[in-house]
């Protein structure tokens, strides 16, 4: 409100032209003026391991869904660098609120191959007790808040979580991932504005992958991406090449430092592309061209990072082969094991609705069990273990 004008003039939608932060070219060399990341070789290789693990996992699980072994899956093909790179720049005590395409961040935190499988196969070892569809991971131990399908709901939650961390005086912040589609939900607006006003150390990381199922981002918004909205909330904002792991890492490290120093949120928009289908329920040929996909396939984030590793002399073809082979073997073995484990016993139908099952719920369970005893064949997954 500082300046005055005396003729009516509009500020137009393109008034902000937010640049994109890039470090690594596709050939694995650095842009001029760009800096190497702050991590060492061990970390560099760990990040690569995460990327490859996720790529192999996604491929195998999409296959498992096709074979009817799991009802649903959702891959992060082409976007692995955004979640792995950002998670890499965080501390273990930072809380993660994910949308659903951030398996890379979870893997980085240490979620085991068995844990991935147990969740996807809804078996009795799933931390979520088999209640949600595949890919709805969560782990208290790893500070990864359990994923929820309704889009955008985690955004104000992440602000509240970070507020609590601040109240507790912790050296910890919260990162909140979401897609550019989810950013159209009212909860996005509420969450970012509240985080700004209430000074919550929250990193909002928008994965702009060009599509929300079939809807291209041009039909999702008219502004300069999601980043330009951050300015409206008074939030420090940065756009980054989401296929550039080093840039995502550096951006997130800077965001973490800023958030904790200023007790304030940061918005990062990571530009990428969903190379695969939205989920196993989707077929993208109905809404985009093979050509477009091919253009983006050339920008593969894993390949780009591998080139960098190779240029540094940290990676060889030999290692590459072993790594893929190992992950494939582990994943297959874990899948077979997970598939055999039974679903949770029927008692867990009523646990966790409240801290303790109410008498009313106990009564419903009792009636259900009596019925199941009469019709055991009707409930093959659970009727064998009614008194377990």
């Amino acid at each position, binding site marked *: 409100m500082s300046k005055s004008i005396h003729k009516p003039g509009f500020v137009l939608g393109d008034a902000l032209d937010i640049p994109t932060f890039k470090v690594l070219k596709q050939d694995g060399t650095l842009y001029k003026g760009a800096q190497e990341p702050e991590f060492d070789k061990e970390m560099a290789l760990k990040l690569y391991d995460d990327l490859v693990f996720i790529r192999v996992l996604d491929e195998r699980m999409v296959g498992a869904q096709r074979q009817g072994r799991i*009802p*649903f899956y959702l891959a992060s093909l082409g976007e692995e660098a955004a979640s792995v790179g950002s998670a890499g720049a965080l501390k273990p005590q930072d809380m993660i609120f994910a949308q659903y395409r951030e398996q890379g961040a979870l893997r980085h935190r240490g979620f085991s191959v068995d844990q991935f499988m147990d969740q996807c196969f*809804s*078996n009795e070892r799933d931390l979520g*007790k*088999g*209640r*949600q*569809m595949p890919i*709805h991971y969560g782990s208290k131990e790893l500070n990864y808040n359990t994923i*929820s*399908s*309704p*889009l*955008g709901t985690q955004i104000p939650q992440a602000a509240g979580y970070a507020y609590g961390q601040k109240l507790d005086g912790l050296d910890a912040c919260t990162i909140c991932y979401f897609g550019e*589609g*989810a950013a*159209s*939900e*009212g*909860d996005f607006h509420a969450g970012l504005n509240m985080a700004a006003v209430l000074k919550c150390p929250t990193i909002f990381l928008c994965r702009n992958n060009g599509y*929300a*199922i*079939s*809807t291209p981002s041009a*039909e*999702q*918004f008219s502004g300069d991406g999601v980043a330009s909205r951050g300015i409206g909330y008074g939030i420090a904002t940065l756009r980054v090449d989401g296929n550039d792991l080093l840039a995502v890492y550096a951006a997130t490290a800077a965001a973490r430092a800023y958030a904790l120093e200023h007790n304030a949120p940061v918005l990062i928009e990571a530009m990428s592309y969903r190379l695969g289908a939205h989920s196993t*329920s*989707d077929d993208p040929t*109905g*809404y985009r061209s093979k050509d477009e996909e091919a253009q983006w396939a050339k920008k593969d984030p894993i390949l780009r990072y591998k080139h960098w590793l190779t240029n540094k002399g940290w990676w060889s073809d030999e290692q590459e082969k072993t790594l893929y082979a190992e992950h494939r073997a582990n994943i297959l073995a874990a899948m077979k094991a997970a598939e055999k484990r039974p*679903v*949770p016993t*029927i008692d*867990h*139908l*009523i646990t966790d*609705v409240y801290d303790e099952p109410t008498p*009313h*719920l106990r009564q*419903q*369970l009792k009636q*259900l069990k009596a*019925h*199941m005893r*009469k*019709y055991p064949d*009707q*409930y093959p*997954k*659970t009727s064998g273990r009614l008194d377990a």
Partner: protein
Amino acid sequence: MSQMNLLQAINNALMTAMEKDDKVVCFGEDVGHFGGVFRATSHLQEKFGRARCFNTPLTEQGIIGFANGLASQGHKAIAEIQFGDYIFPAFDQIVNETAKFRYRSGNEFNVGGLTIRTPYGGGIRGGHYHSQSPEAYFAHTPGLKIVVPRNPHQAKGLLLASIRDDNPVIFFEPKRLYRAAVGDVPEEDYELPIGVAETVREGQDCTLLAWGAQMEVASKAAERAEKEGIDCEVIDLRSILPWDVDAVVASVKKTGRLVVTHEAPLTNGFGAEIAATVQEQAFLHLEAPVNRVCGLDVPYPLSHEAEYMPDETKVFEAIVATMNY
């Protein structure tokens, strides 16, 4: 007549409505070029242009807010909510706005032209958020109509009636039946009445009441009961609001017994309203309490879906229990 599945019948109804009336407009997440994640709106954009069939940004509260405005302007707005589980961000726009638009303005303005279509229900291994049956949440709201078809023929006739009804209608589509339910559907334009139940099977011993996908379960339970010598009358409620009290009460007065079944949790589901009304209006005729066979009072589960659901055997057992009361 053609053979259509439920999705095709809905698509056909939308085509018919848009052809006949320029004021009909369809929109929602992914409904444009792609034709919706279930393809209920296939080819509508192709045929009627982007102005009349289009994608919206991903915001249910925005979709219904926009639809309220568009309907109050005089268009027939057909808004899709991609899954019934995602209708709740729009709850305020529906319950505080849509439902009260006409009343609060003394009919200066109304959104009678609005129809909200949404797939609902379980049985597709969808867990918490792709399985809910939220009809009861809306049934407490004067000003709304709520309709649920059970087969392709109903889907077309009830959807056309909903679009043309001069009141806002929420049209719940049983997604488990989208491709599974196939039947004869007239090519021509027709409407089925809102607020009128349909007796699909006459019987003397016990009335069975359901709607949407649960009708299949009810009908199978009735067949099973028949084998045990129990003669069930099976009624499809079709409309939740307004609901056909007279038809249900008349049947219960005849049979003396009522079993209601729905997928949503028991507590304060629409079965509660039915039981409360029936015990009042048919008190002296009831030989047994109204028996509700519903989902358990838990969030919709994935791996225990079969156990949670009010299936054929549970409904059958309720019939037997009601007969033996």
